[in-house]
């Protein structure tokens, strides 16, 4: 079966980039990078207008990306994988690595998503960060984030991808800890960075195994050699890549940083969750499809990780009262859907990416909406302190509602076209797998409906629960316009790109063509079941949080709820399993170092010093004592010579 899949995946013939637009694709990365450098170096004199440079950079990149996409669309599907050689990067003996870009439907999908959503978030940030004294620095970091993400998705080798990968990690660290004058923010940034390092270890090991097995780390050679490699090697590479993806995409068991990452300014959360950073893991798995295809066991692990994370995130989302943390948990859960789809093989790749695109729109919309609510409520994030905001923030309410319907998967909004397909794909297969995976995806949809509706009703409906001195007001135009654009995207992108399977066809040069397969349940039955569950979830949330009054302080709750409020004790588990043993190990190593190694070295030093101290007594400076020593020595010599002579 695996071999059959490989045949289906025969990649489209790769061609050199041609035409002005394609050969200048390197500008996609260079423009935001230069803008970031400019903003950082320009100093205070750019404080007044620097943010517009920051907005223009991803905007220009989007226009260029659109041009490249159109030029690819001009040719037929077989010519849509282009490579652009940039320069010889590491010419070192047997390792010869070129830096180059790979322009194909997958990377360009990401380019368009990242630059489009990124530009909107930049525009929004102009107003959101209006009162921040270091707004220019903020835009520099945002630009750097975009540049790193574009490098990540455009790279034509795993090593160049790794450069972008690390750049994204650095940018997220800088942005999560942007307000690092408050300790919790700095700690959250460090936590994200450290957990990402764990994932990066997987990436490094995968790179090493690739180099050892294939002698190269560029996509073309590796994918070409993958079918001939042993299953063990492919499984090892796949699992290590999965570890890397888990770190970057906040998948189980490396999910703990995502909630704390909410410490950053809200536009950063939107950027991390919608366009950059967490989507990188899904990209990596889909991009490495030829490797994963050869390792069915690793694919199963991907699906399981996706399934666990999808339920995990949903459960955490059910209990949180912090609006941003609910959204973070929801991202975790939605990325879980994408991972699950990516692990299903060719049947799921296109839908994983498709869901990623629609998720990019509605999740950015939700985060920007949450930012707008916080803007109007003096940075309050506790949903128990919101309520009845509909009439004060009408535009935010409308855009948020569309994004909410999209994430719920209500037709005809975007989420329906992608999430429903993933659930269908999860039901395809034989044996126990489709039932388990399908039901997990189905239950996840119901949970999503409940917690997102809970968030929506608690924030915008029900009774007013604010403190007296709060005066909710609508955000300025610079913030509402991006929200409206994203809401339009959340409403229509999914449906438009689904016409005639347009999106799947567009991705085919990368993901391969896949014949339609029948799920174990009939498609209408799955759709109806999903919709019923979603409506039930929404109804219960409406009854509990819109009709009845919501207590201002969280009520005492069951064990399960308390666990979910505490992120299912993920931090406690990490601390007990890794942090404390690690610290104990460090302490014992330090102790051993001090008691054994240092003691030995110190001992030699003390011995020499002590001997010197003893010998020093002889050097008393009295000429007569030196003379006496000489005479004594002479006498001893005399005695010795005479004794040996006789």
């Amino acid at each position, binding site marked *: 079966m695996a071999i059959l899949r490989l045949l289906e995946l025969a990649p489209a013939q790769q061609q050199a980039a041609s035409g002005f637009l394609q050969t200048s694709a390197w500008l996609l990365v260079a423009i935001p990078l230069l803008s970031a450098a400019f903003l950082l170096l320009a100093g205070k004199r750019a404080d007044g207008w620097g943010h517009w440079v920051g907005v223009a950079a991803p905007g220009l990149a989007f226009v260029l990306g659109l041009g490249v996409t159109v030029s690819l669309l001009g040719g037929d599907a077989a010519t849509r994988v282009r490579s652009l050689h940039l320069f010889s990067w590491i010419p070192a003996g047997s390792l010869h690595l070129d830096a180059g870009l790979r322009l194909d439907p997958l990377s360009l999908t990401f380019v368009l998503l990242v630059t489009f959503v990124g530009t909107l978030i930049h525009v929004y940030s102009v107003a959101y960060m209006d009162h921040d004294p270091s707004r220019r620095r903020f835009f520099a970091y945002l630009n750097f984030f975009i540049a790193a993400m574009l490098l990540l998705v455009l790279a034509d080798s795993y090593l160049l991808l790794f450069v972008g990968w690390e750049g994204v990690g650095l940018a997220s660290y800088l942005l999560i800890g942007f307000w690092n004058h408050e300790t919790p923010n700095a700690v959250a940034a460090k936590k994200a960075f450290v957990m990402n390092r764990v994932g990066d270890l997987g990436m490094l090991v995968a790179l090493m195994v690739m180099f050892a097995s294939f002698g190269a780390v560029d996509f073309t050679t590796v994918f070409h050699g993958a079918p001939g490699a042993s299953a063990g090697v492919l499984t090892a590479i796949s699992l290590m890549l999965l570890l890397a993806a888990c770190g970057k995409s906040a998948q189980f068991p490396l999910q703990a940083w995502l909630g704390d990452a909410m410490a950053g300014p809200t536009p950063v959360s939107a950027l991390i969750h919608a366009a950059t950073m967490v989507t990188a893991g899904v990209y990596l798995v889909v991009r490495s499809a030829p490797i994963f295809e050869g390792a069915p066991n690793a694919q199963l692990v991907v699906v399981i990780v996706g399934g666990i994370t999808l339920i995990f995130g949903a459960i955490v989302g059910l209990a949180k009262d912090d609006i941003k943390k609910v959204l973070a948990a929801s991202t975790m859960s939605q990325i879980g859907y994408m991972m699950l789809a990516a692990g299903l093989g060719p049947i799921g790749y296109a839908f994983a990416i498709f869901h990623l695109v629609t998720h990019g729109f509605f999740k950015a919309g939700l985060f920007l909406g949450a930012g707008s609510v916080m803007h109007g409520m003096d940075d309050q994030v506790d949903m128990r302190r919101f309520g009845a905001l509909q009439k004060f923030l009408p535009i935010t309410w409308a855009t948020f509602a569309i994004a909410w319907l999209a994430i719920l998967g209500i037709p005809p909004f975007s989420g329906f076209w992608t999430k429903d397909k993933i659930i269908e794909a999860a039901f395809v297969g034989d044996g126990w797998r489709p039932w388990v995976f399908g039901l997990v995806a189905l239950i996840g949809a119901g949970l999503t409906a409940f917690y997102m509706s809970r968030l929506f009703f608690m924030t915008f409906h029900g009774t007013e629960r604010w403190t007296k001195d709060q005066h909710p007001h609508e955000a300025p135009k610079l913030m509402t316009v991006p929200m409206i654009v994203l809401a339009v995207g959340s409403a229509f992108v999914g449906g438009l790109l689904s016409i005639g399977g347009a999106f799947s066809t567009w991705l085919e040069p990368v993901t391969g063509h896949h014949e339609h397969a029948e799920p174990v349940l009939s498609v209408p039955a799955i759709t109806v079941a999903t919709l019923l569950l979603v409506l039930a979830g929404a109804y219960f949330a409406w009854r509990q949080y819109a009709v009845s009054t919501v207590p201002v302080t969280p009520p005492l709750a069951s064990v399960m709820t308390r666990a979910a409020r505490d992120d299912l004790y993920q931090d406690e588990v990490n601390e007990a399993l890794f942090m404390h043993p690690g610290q104990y190990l460090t302490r014992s190593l330090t102790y051993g170092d001090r008691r054994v190694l240092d003691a030995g070295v110190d001992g030699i030093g003390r011995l020499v010093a002590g001997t010197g101290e003893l010998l020093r007594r002889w*050097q*008393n*400076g*009295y*000429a*007569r004592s030196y*003379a*006496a020593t000489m*005479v004594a020595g002479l006498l001893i010599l005399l005695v010795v010579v005479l004794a040996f002579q006789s």
Partner: protein
Amino acid sequence: MNLSNYLVLASILFAIGTATVLLRRNAIIVFMGVELMLNSANLLLVTFARIHGDLQGQVMAFFVMVVAAAEVVVGLAIIVSIFRARRSASVDDVNLLKN
């Protein structure tokens, strides 16, 4: 001639010189002890040269005298300058090398 007489005399002279160098504090007296030791050695050189009928020992004795004379010049100069600096000719006062 009886060899042992010469040897005993030379040994006594050498012992006196050594004791003088080791026990006396005055630099000039110490110097005289050194001269005594040199001369006891000279006595032995000359004695053995006479017994072996060989001139080499006698020549060596002359060398020792010349070197001793040179040494006395340098040594006395040092002692005089030390005396000028410290108003003392005691060898125990010249212990700046300590510490």
